[in-house]
């Protein structure tokens, strides 16, 4: 394909790019047809793409070809129809990755620029094939770039043009895979560590709606991906669960911080709305966890795959501990602050318990106690960390674990009760009595809420 370069050179930028796309389509069709595994696009072709579509300078001497804004728009339109018209999935995927897979060279910048514009346009005009390709791109690309692409969309649809949110909203029905990846990228992007990294309310509302409508949406990528087991570390998580859990737990503290800032700045309207949204989102996340036992069992991964990594949970708890300490220092007087802290801890406890029960989080309660040791006291967290009391007063009703079978299985399956997760013997934790505010976890000590007899 390298030989067409001479024919492309004399052309103007747009027609050269157009011509190249045309040849690329044919070339990749043939490549896929040949059945060679894996179909490899040769470096000459990649270079042509960089030169004539991305307009990266081939060498210092070559003149920089640049497209006008109008030409770029025309090119994007051509690309859109190119993907739309190509009926074969494999061909489409290969063209997309030829164009947009990062090569680690200086063309990557313009590659990301063009990708951002193409995906944004695809969202606007509803080009499902492009969104599907982009979903795959998300899966294979380093998280940093994924976050950048997500940022483009959020900027375009949530910040730049107010009221264009509904357009973005539709992507969950157009391409659930893309939507799922988008959520993962967005939750990675906005880690609530600063005001800039707090999701815009419009985006939050959208995500809550998406997940409420179909909680399985957040599992789409996971459900559709044959798990290789060893995902490249730099990639996005296979589900947004970790990010969403982080959002919900940190939100009461993060938004409180924002609120304070806003208060000093003057107006405050959006913050009042965020509370219920996060509450709903948190519930949805727990409901998604509850779906997992069945799904994991079906995939034969029950107890083998941690969708929520212990180390990311650990990072979260230490983050939370730090935040709580900070707020503690600043807002001793505020009763609200205490309630919000407790809300954050309640949510943490709930997320940990439900994730553990659904085997999305693979660890022992002892592990949890370790990572939660710096957190202040919370009744529910205490209960979760110690685990349920193992004997049950009502001897007539046998204890039922949340096995993958209970949810949708026939009655008969109850005869085969799975064994309960073994209760970890309570051991005193070294860090548990170091500080005044930390989790006072001690063997045999009654919880404050349990009235003593």
């Amino acid at each position, binding site marked *: 394909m390298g030989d067409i370069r001479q024919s492309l050179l004399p052309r103007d930028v747009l027609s050269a790019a157009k011509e190249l796309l045309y040849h690329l389509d044919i070339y990749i069709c043939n490549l896929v047809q040949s059945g060679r595994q894996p179909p490899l696009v040769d470096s000459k072709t990649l270079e042509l793409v960089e030169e004539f579509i991305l307009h990266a300078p081939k060498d210092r001497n070559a003149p920089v070809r640049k497209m006008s804004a109008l030409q770029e728009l025309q090119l994007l339109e051509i690309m859109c129809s190119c993907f739309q018209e190509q009926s074969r999935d494999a061909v489409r995927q290969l063209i997309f990755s030829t164009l947009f897979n990062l090569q680690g060279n200086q063309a990557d910048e313009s590659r990301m620029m063009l990708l951002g514009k193409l995906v944004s346009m695809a969202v606007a005009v509803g080009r499902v094939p492009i969104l599907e390709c982009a979903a795959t791109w998300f899966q294979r690309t380093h998280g940093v770039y994924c976050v950048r692409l997500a940022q483009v969309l959020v900027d375009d649809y949530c910040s730049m043009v107010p009221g264009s949110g509904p357009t973005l909203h539709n992507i969950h029905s157009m391409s659930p895979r893309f939507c799922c990846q988008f959520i993962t990228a967005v939750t990675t992007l906005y880690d609530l560590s600063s005001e800039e990294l707090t999701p815009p309310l419009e985006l939050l509302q959208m995500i809550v709606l998406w997940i409420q409508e179909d909680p399985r949406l957040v599992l789409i990528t996971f459900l559709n991906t044959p798990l290789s087991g060893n995902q490249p570390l730099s990639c996005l998580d296979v589900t947004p669960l970790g990010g969403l859990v982080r959002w919900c737990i940190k939100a009461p503290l993060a938004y409180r911080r924002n609120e304070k800032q806003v208060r000093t700045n003057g107006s405050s309207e959006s913050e009042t709305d965020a509370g219920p949204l996060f509450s709903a989102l948190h519930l949805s996340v727990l409901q998604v966890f509850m779906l997992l036992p069945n799904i994991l069992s079906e995939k034969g991964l029950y107890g083998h795959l941690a969708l929520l990594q212990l180390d990311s949970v650990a990072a979260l708890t230490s983050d939370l501990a730090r935040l709580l300490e900070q707020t503690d220092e600043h807002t001793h007087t505020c009763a609200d602050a205490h309630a919000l802290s407790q809300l954050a801890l309640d949510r943490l406890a*709930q997320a940990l318990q439900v994730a553990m029960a659904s085997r999305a989080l693979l660890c022992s309660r002892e592990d949890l106690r370790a990572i939660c040791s710096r957190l202040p006291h919370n009744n*529910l967290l205490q209960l*979760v960390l110690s685990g349920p009391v193992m004997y049950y007063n009502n001897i007539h009703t046998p204890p039922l674990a949340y096995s993958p079978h209970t949810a949708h299985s026939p009655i008969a399956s109850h005869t085969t009760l799975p064994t309960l997760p073994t209760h970890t013997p309570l051991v005193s934790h070294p860090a548990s009595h170091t500080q005044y505010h930390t989790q006072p976890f001690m063997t045999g000590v009654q919880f404050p809420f349990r009235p003593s007899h």
Partner: protein
Amino acid sequence: MSAQKDCEFLVKKARELVSEDPCAAKAWLITARTLYPADFNIQYEMYIIERNAEKTASAGRLLYDMFINFPDQPIVWREISVITAALRSDSQDKHAQFLRGLFETLPGRVQCEMLLKATEQCFNTLEKAEMLLLLLKRFPESVVQHGVNLGETLLEAEVSENVETPVNCFRKLFVCDVLPLVMNNMDMRLPTSLMQKYILKAAEFYIGYVSRGPSPDVQIQGTQDGGTLKSPGVSRGSQRYVIDGLSEKSSVVAEPWERLLDIVTVVGARCEWQGDKGQRNYVDLFQRVKELCRYLPSLEGETRSRCCSQVVICTALILFRSAFLYVSAVQPSLFQGQSLLHAMNSGPWILVEDLSSVYSDVDVERAALKHAHKKRKLVDGREKTMSSDDEEGLGKSRGRHIFVNKAEMPSWAETLESFRTARESWDLLYSHDGLETEFKKICAAWKTESWLWFRIFLTDMIIYQGQYRKALSSLHQMAAVHQPQPGQQSPSGQASLEHHRALIQQASCHYALGEYRMACEKLLDVVGGLVPPSQDLNRSHEDQGRTKTRPRRGNDLRLLPCTSRAVLPFCLQLMLALFKLRAFTDSRDDLSLGHVVVLLQFDWPQGEMLFLKAVEKICQQGSFQYENFFNYVTNIDMLEEFAYLRTPEGGRIQLELLPNQGMLIKNPSPALGVELNTLLLQGVQTMDRHHTVTRGITKGVKEDFRLAMERQVSRCGENLFSVLHRFCVNEKIIIIQSLP
């Protein structure tokens, strides 16, 4: 430290949150459930949140979990009974609909189990049956196991609960709901005897349902003379009907006769009845039964008995349906629902002898009557034989024509057809001993002898057959039953008219039997209770006159509207018929002849021919004494004729028509007579001044006659109905006494 305390803590926390942040409450409960999956209260709390928010799918899911995991929790059962109650009810309120929707989200197997268990916990037979019925309707495969048992339970309940009528809640469930499920389930093997039992239970119910009387709390005010409904309560009230124990909606049975036919079809198919499988309608059904009946005698053994029961069941249904249709047209106020339909354009109707030939010549009549008596005997002799459909061919009972004013009864054709079908099916049932025995068993089981409406049909049927003696005894019994009750008396006099129905029929029967005096007594009783209608009512009779094209044979019948405008003319005609023969015998009977003359005024000039015959007779006699003449004869033609009779040209007939004449001669002493005399004499004196002076004792009488004549002429415009009504009421004793 106990698990229970933990659970209580978690549930309490959720309860605190639910109103302000339901999502948080749910999050708590989800967490709680993963901690204590075996705790009932946690799951129940989850369910309550979803149920209160009317979230059908999630509430259903949680109910399912509870049903599976906590099958022994009383709270779960209380919940399930609330839901099943909603399923049984026809309430349209939002919560009931939610509960029904909730049930629908459950997997079929769970629904089935839930209903079964809920049924087990029911102690009320009706509720239990309704519950089981829900199960059977949803899960046809359960019909095999539970269908017949449920049916039997309902039939037993009927007995044990001592219900009075076949139209009760148990029977309704059995017939309308259980039976179709059982009958249409071809996986079940049902013995023929059971199916016959069931079809008869169904028929008894449906017949009882259609023929149910008006609700006692609703006053049915029929309309007389086809007037408009004045009572606003009628249209709403008479349609309301509730079977004890059921809701108003489930008390409604749509198209009962069609449903019954459906069952006949299914039973027919299952019992391998002879003939076409699909009985499209009752006419087809009857046709088939008649065919079947023809070769019934040639059958033997089991085939014969099977065929017999087919014929009896089908024919009985046809009989009761046709009889019902006939009676509901003739006596609509007997029935709920029907009353409204018919009351709009017609009241009750009475089957009586047709008397429109009463004005015909006596000799013709006499001959016809003799002939008819002969024929009647002949027919009675061969009563039980089936004959062809040819109405004209045979004697009285076969070929009797029933006249009806078609304008007044728009459905006359259907009514007469129903009557005919009912009679034919009755005849068919009595055409074989085997059939008769079977049919009588059905009647005994259903206690048909207590069905007033059916007795009305039977009476009309035997009247039609000419068995007047039997009809009379039946009418006597009915009259006793059908006394007007004080509460039922409506301002229009409808109730009393209906009471007169039996009297009129009795009069008609006595007349047909030749028992004139009895006939007269009855009809005068009737007339005594009537209010004479206003004058302008002769038009309907003109209609009748016009339809009278072919000569009557004197044995026809008529359906007479039970209104005073129709009844009074009929009574007058009947009276005329009673006296006509006596008046024109060879021996002299001036009283009868006078009555005839009075009665002939009605429907004038229909009776002109007879009147001339009467005049001829008077001329032959040379004299005529009838003291009521001037009281009741106001017809100008007649007055002229009588005035003429006295003249030399008329033959100087001696007419003693003044009441005082008779009184003067026969009874000069009573105070009343003297008074009248002086009154009349005063009149004579005044007349003398204007008219030519006459001489002799009789001259005064002559003047009286003239005076009376002139006075009568001025009375010509008087309401004839009132005059004749007065005649019947005032002269009742004389009239009756003048008959042997």
